[in-house]
């Protein structure tokens, strides 16, 4: 059969961009197909707006948000400046099981969530890849850190990740650009915490914001604006637009189609191969198809599962690549909440200049070489930072008039924020299905999310809160507030799993090359492949797995294996 393309990449977000870059650079002719609209790099109309340029001063039209962005509005990064980079919930519905609270934060556009992400980039370690084997929950990862280390190197170097080397086993160092600085309060907190607990290391967030320009790639260094989700015409943070798409385009082998939602992947039972994808034009509703020798599914974890479930066929009635029956199960998201907030006295004569687009991280220190967590066997970590409060503090203070105005003119007290991320156990009961009784505007069945945190995540949240309080107080902070209640599922925006990797085709969907056990020319390299969740942000690991899978796929293609 003649194929139009060597490979089709479904989705243009963080992982789709990587798949397109790696496959085209390896010589393949690639079609990247994206459901959302085209966004050209630099076409970020609100990037440089001031609050007074916008009708609602940055806070947005709450009437519109209620009707059209009921979920997205719950995310701190969703503002009047960034709203056009998030999905319209009314037009793109999903459903949840009766007792499920799940906020699914999405961006359907060229670049996907690479435009809106928080850019935190953390390697996973063997504490993470070995987690399922160690406590017997979930299925063992078929890979370990050593399998991924060279791919982390490659990805970090290209992405441009700034960060500090700390020599920690639980958070391996990478190929970093020079770190952004800890501010004066964070630096003091780091020393004070370390003096009491040497294993608790507060370090600068490792972030895909560049401190060194890459002139050859047309990317400038960061200007310390911290407005990244508006889009950055400097190209100083990693997005598909700033980074992988130009690289893939440069090969001359990439075709991009936008406004086309992939409804299903076609499967030929005779060859036991996929042959291409079927799609719907989201504007005209016209159907189309494209053929290729291999397919990379990069629609974002939940949407990739949607495509696989919706690709059920006579030979695979429960979904493409689902002979195991686990497709859609074991979805995860970090349990996530504000674990601790404290006022930090003693720095009243200090301030900073510039808006650093990253905070701090305190990597896990529990359940490493011994199981010392209370009521849980996995990790938790913190992100946050110290900041000097601004005019918005006036909203919670009594007062008005000239004195009040003079008071708000100056920076307020220093505060330290610690947000906890607790590892989520893989559970069969947390799963995605298709609700075929309801369809969206394209006639596609709605995704249904069934999700709850369990005893382990709640225990981790309690410990994350107590430990945050203990650290903030020991470091001289006056504790103000902290929660033990995780936000709704999806709050961490690290939703993953559903097509997990494993050794055994009977209990997993993908093998160690992110390749479907059942279908040799189908690769799923986004979050769907994750077998456990760790407590680090996952996208760097998705990127490394994508680059590794692309390399493997090209090798198999050349050897005539697929």
């Amino acid at each position: 059969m003649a194929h139009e393309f060597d490979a089709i990449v479904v989705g243009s977000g963080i992982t789709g961009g990587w798949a397109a870059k790696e496959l085209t650079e390896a010589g393949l002719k690639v079609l990247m197909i994206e459901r959302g609209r085209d966004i050209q790099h630099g076409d970020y109309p609100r990037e440089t707006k001031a609050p007074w340029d916008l009708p609602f001063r940055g806070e947005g039209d709450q009437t519109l948000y209620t009707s059209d962005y009921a979920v997205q509005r719950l995310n701190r990064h969703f503002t009047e400046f960034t709203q056009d980079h998030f999905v319209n919930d009314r037009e793109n519905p999903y459903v949840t099981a009766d007792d499920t609270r799940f906020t699914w934060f999405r961006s359907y556009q060229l670049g996907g969530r690479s435009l809106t992400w928080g850019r935190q980039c953390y390697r996973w370690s063997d504490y993470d890849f070995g987690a399922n084997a160690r406590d017997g929950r979930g299925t063992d990862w078929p890979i370990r850190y050593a399998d991924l280390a060279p791919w982390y190197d490659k990805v970090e170097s290209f992405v441009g990740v700034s960060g500090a080397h700390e020599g920690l086993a639980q958070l391996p160092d990478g190929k970093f650009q020079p770190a952004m600085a800890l501010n004066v309060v964070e630096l003091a907190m780091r020393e004070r915490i370390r003096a009491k607990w040497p294993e608790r290391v507060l370090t600068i967030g490792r972030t895909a914001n560049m401190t060194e320009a890459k002139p050859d790639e047309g990317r400038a260094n960061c200007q310390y604006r911290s407005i990244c989700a508006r889009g950055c015409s400097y190209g100083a943070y990693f997005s598909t637009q700033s980074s992988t798409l130009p690289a893939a385009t440069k090969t001359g082998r990439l075709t991009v189609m936008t406004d086309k939602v992939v409804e299903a992947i076609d499967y030929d039972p005779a060859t036991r191969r996929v042959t291409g994808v079927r799609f719907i034009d989201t504007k005209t509703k016209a159907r189309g198809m494209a053929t290729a020798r291999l397919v990379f599914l990069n629609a974002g974890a939940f949407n990739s599962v949607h495509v696989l479930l919706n690709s059920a066929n006579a030979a695979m009635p429960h979904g493409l690549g689902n002979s195991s029956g686990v497709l859609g199960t074991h979805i995860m998201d970090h349990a996530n909440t504000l674990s601790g907030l404290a006022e930090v006295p003693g720095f009243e004569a200090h301030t900073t200049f510039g808006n650093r687009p990253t905070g701090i991280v305190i990597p896990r220190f529990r359940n490493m070489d011994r199981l010392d967590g209370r009521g849980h066997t996995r990790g938790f970590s913190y992100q946050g930072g110290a900041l000097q409060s601004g005019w918005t503090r006036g909203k919670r203070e009594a007062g008005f008039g000239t004195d009040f105005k003079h008071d708000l003119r100056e920076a307020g007290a220093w505060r330290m924020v610690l947000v906890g991320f607790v590892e989520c156990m893989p559970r069969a009961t947390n799963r995605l299905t298709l609700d075929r009784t309801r369809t969206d505007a394209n006639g596609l069945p709605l995704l249904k999310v069934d999700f709850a945190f369990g005893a382990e995540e709640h225990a981790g949240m309690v410990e994350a809160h107590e430990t945050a309080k203990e650290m903030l107080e020991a470091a001289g902070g006056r504790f103000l507030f902290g929660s033990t209640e995780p936000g709704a599922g999806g709050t961490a925006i690290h939703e993953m799993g559903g097509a997990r990797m494993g050794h055994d085709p009977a209990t997993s969907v993908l093998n160690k090359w992110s390749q479907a056990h059942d279908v040799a020319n189908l690769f799923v390299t986004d979050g769907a492949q994750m077998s456990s969740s760790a407590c680090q942000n996952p996208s760097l690991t998705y990127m490394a797995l994508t680059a590794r899978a692309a390399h493997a796929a090209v090798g198999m293609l050349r050897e005539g294996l697929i």
Partner: protein
Amino acid sequence: MIAKAPSDPTELRDHLARRDVLRGAALLTLVLGVPAHALVANPTGVSGHQMALLRQVCKLVIPRTDTPGAGDVGVSEFVVLALDHGLLGDGQADHLVWLEHVLGANFATIGAAQQVDRLGAIDRAAFPAGPPPATPSPWRRIKGLILTGYYTSEAGASRELQYELVPGRFDPDLPLHPGDRAWSSDWTAVDFG
């Protein structure tokens, strides 16, 4: 290569597209940039008396000093717009009716000192020491919107405070002197207060 971010036409198009959700011609006019003070009567249900009262309250909360105050930069119009879009319909009238009620019918005619006393009582009751009250006073929201309206106006953000969209560098530790003006463009501080 640094591409330029355009484009006012896009902004305008956005606004026009959202016209259907903007109730009232006056609000539309406001959004499209006709100076706020050009609005006299307001068809969205805000009475002239409420509008005048709100403007007076804005002046009391953020008076004119060496920089403009909330009465000088259209904050009351922003509060009405935000209430109208924040509370789904009738909330706006509720808040302003409440304000009219608690300040008293004669508020406009009493002396400045008395106005401060009355507003002070409402303000102290709304912001008691300790944790925020279970049923917050509507004043918390009105005052919050006045502060937003002021500190996100050009004068409030860039003259009363300092505004720098492109700092270009990060200094992690600088001396802070009394009287130094805070940065309205410190988005993290704005978020986490």
